[in-house]
């Protein structure tokens, strides 16, 4: 039923989600890290050495942290200026999306940097 014009409108509207993309990565990182922290503690992964004195628990948390930071960096790089002219509202969406992604990246690093040092299960 979708006409080409309607499909274009759907695509334009879907791009509104870009404004929330950065902090969605932050939210997913939060769920993943908090969830896996609980799972690891439940199964005693903090008492199992993985490599070079780093426990399985800390290693998996570090990997999750790195994956989400990398995703945040990729998003910010993908949205970086100059912003293409995409008609009314399009430029604005990219601008907001980019700066929200930068803010979210900083938030991810700040919120979860504790995985490097703090005791995981006590």
């Amino acid at each position, binding site marked *: 039923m979708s006409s080409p014009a309607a499909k274009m409108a759907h695509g334009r509207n879907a791009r509104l989600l870009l404004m929330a993309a950065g902090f969605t990565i932050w939210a997913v990182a939060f769920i993943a890290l908090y969830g896996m922290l609980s799972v690891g503690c439940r199964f005693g992964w903090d008492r199992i050495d993985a490599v070079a004195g780093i426990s399985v628990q800390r290693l998996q948390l570090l990997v999750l942290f790195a994956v989400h930071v990398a995703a945040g960096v990729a998003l910010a790089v993908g949205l970086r200026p100059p912003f293409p002219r995409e008609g009314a509202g399009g430029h604005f969406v990219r601008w907001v999306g980019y700066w929200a992604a930068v803010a979210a990246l900083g*938030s991810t690093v700040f919120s*979860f940097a504790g995985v490097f040092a703090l005791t995981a299960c006590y």
Partner: protein
Amino acid sequence: MSIEQASPNPIRLHKELAALWDTPAGWGRLSAVNHTVLGKRFIVAAFVFFAIGGLLAMLIRVQIATSQTAFVGPEIYGQIFTMHGTVMMFLFAIPMFEGFAIYLLPKLLGARDLAFPRLTAYGFWCYIFGGSILICAMLAGVAPDSGWFMYTPLSSSTYTPGINADVWLLGITFVEISALAAAVEIVVTVLKVRAPGMSIDRMPIMAWYLLITALMMLFGFPPLILGSILLELERAFGLPFFDPTRGGDSLLWQHLFWLFGHPEVYIIFLPAAGAVSMMIPTFARHELVGYRAIIVAVIAVAFLSFGLWVHHMFTVGIPHLALAFFSAASGLVAVPTAVQIFAWIATLAQGRPRYDVPMLYLGGFFFVFVLGGLTGVMLAMVPFNWQAHDTHFVVAHLHYVLVGGFVFPMMAAAYYWLPHFTGRVSDHRLSVPAFWLIFGGFNLTFFLMHLTGLLGMPRRVAFYPVEAGWDWLNLISSVGSFLMTIGFALFVVDLVVQVRFGKAFRRNPWNARTPEWAMPTPPTSYAFGSLPHIEDRADRLDADKLGAELAGGSGYLGFTRNGWLETLTVDMTSGRPDQLLVLPNQTFKPLWSGLATGAFVLCLLFKFYWLSLAALALAVASLLAWTQGMGAREDVGALPIGRGEVAAPHWETERPPSWWAMVFCIAAEGTLFASLLFGALFLWLVAPGWPPPDAVSPGTILPVLCLVALGSAALGGRGALAALTAGNSPSVWLMLACASHLAAIVLLASMAAGIDDPTAHAHYATAFVTLIYAAVRSGLGLIFAGHGLWRERGGYLSQARSLDLRIGKLWHDYSAVTGAIAVLAVFATAWLVGSAR
């Protein structure tokens, strides 16, 4: 279709539009669906509840004024402080913001009404009936008494055996329906129901705040609704979600409650911040500095506020690393909040500020809210939090944040927009002493609570010993609270004086530049005689000039047609007009639906469970009756909308507001379902008393058949739509969807019935509820499919008119996917339990 083409005469246009849009007099007032009428009713009702909450606060302050002044025992005192918090949070703050949003939003967006006027009315009735249940219970002496957060096990049936806790769980859930209805309404309205030309970057800043707040409500309220349902199931039927002796955990309640509870603080603050962002540019005589930066900041606040909830639980015994996550996020949220504050200061610095009464109240907001924010950062730090937890320091902090962040801005907003409501301006003789009494009384009351808190005074105690040395500080706090009350009384008197005796004015007394002032005041029921074409950011308008032009009918829809209540929808991003939205007329149906929903809640409250099924059926039937007469029995095609443009009526378009409403309802419902899965996982990971003696065993055949039925239901929904759009009858496909949903219900119920004793352990209870919940979703799918058949028989469906089936398809797909997840989740938890054994 005839067009009763209006003459350029604004008077004639007004009469024609008023005849369609006005709410009837007498009993007809109960049929109101108009946003201006309902917005005012929400605000007045919220203010009444505010007065009730304030009186309860006075009782609290009398009780603890000194160690010798206690006049009620701990049982009644528990009811008083519980009802104070409950009324202020659920019956005042949220509905007050909803009222402002309902009244203002269409006017800010250049539209004639909200997307779903009957939903607004239904939300209003749910709010009134739910609130009344709570107040009646209080008058009967059976009010909730476990604190506004209803912590288990205190609120469990063992320790609260009466109906006190049930009143809270059912009454508040009833009110939450209102809040979710408003959230869907606001989101869809902001995204779709705007004036042509109002692209996403031209919206008034308040619309951004309301959009983001409403989205937060969609994701923030479901965890509380789920928690309330689970706790009520535990209290009523013994399903042990929070009982640690049977595999439950009281911490699950705390997680579910604060997953809602902390975002709630920002849900209350952000609309008020939106109002601040509207008022400051007007009084600074300079457009808002950092419009885009503020939007980024509000998005950041919205997300970060969902990562703070555990700072209410820092003392329950959580690993250091987890504490660090929540502590960091709690501190971090101050940054985007500060961005907004600096943007307001910059706007004042860049402009030529002029003083008026709203600015006085905004000054109070800055002072009080910033102090509350700073103590918030203190409480975000774990070591300090451990010291101050559950003391009056926290009470002081939360009042600085909530009164500073909501009450002061809303009082400023009252003075700013009251001329819009009434068409009168005040000479403000009482507003200044009222402010100083409120401001002085507030700080006297709550600043000293920081000190009593630091001296160790705990919250929620009905008595304290004279040896503690807290008497003088508490007495001064109590005196301050009475000064504040006198100030609020003066504020009310001042509003009444303005409404009754204020000077009339023509329009726009503040020289504001936003669309809501481009209309006569008090506003007409249809808001705009014709709809504007927005060519710049919506806070850069010449409201006086635009208002006169629109009243003359020179914009869009400057005429009446077929007795329809018309407004326009736009493409979300570009603001190009894309649909003619035909709104429903005044009707009593929302009132009947509200009454039926209220009857259902009351049946549950008084444990008439079989009767409650009849009330539920009545409520569903009354909601289905809303669709009667909506849409058309013949294709209409594109119609003229003015300015040489045409648009199709919304039921002949692919994604009208009702389609989007279903998308956002599904998002909220999905959050509720995800919260249930989180609960099951949480209990398996953390709760004591695991594993249970045996894992549930759903078998193989029933689950496989169930997955087939769910898939078949989705196929039926899709096939029906495909058949209709190809010009064929969708009946067979819809019947397939009906039969498949029915089969899924039977199979899911059979699997649930196969669980021996769901009350024996939380593992069985979560599996039972997960399956029943999936069956309920299939029940709704059955209703949607049956509704499609009914609409087809009525002649409302055609190739062009497929909206009913497209909405149904969304639900059929969703219920199939989540039904399958539910079945697999039961298998997964059973496997986890089995492997742990």
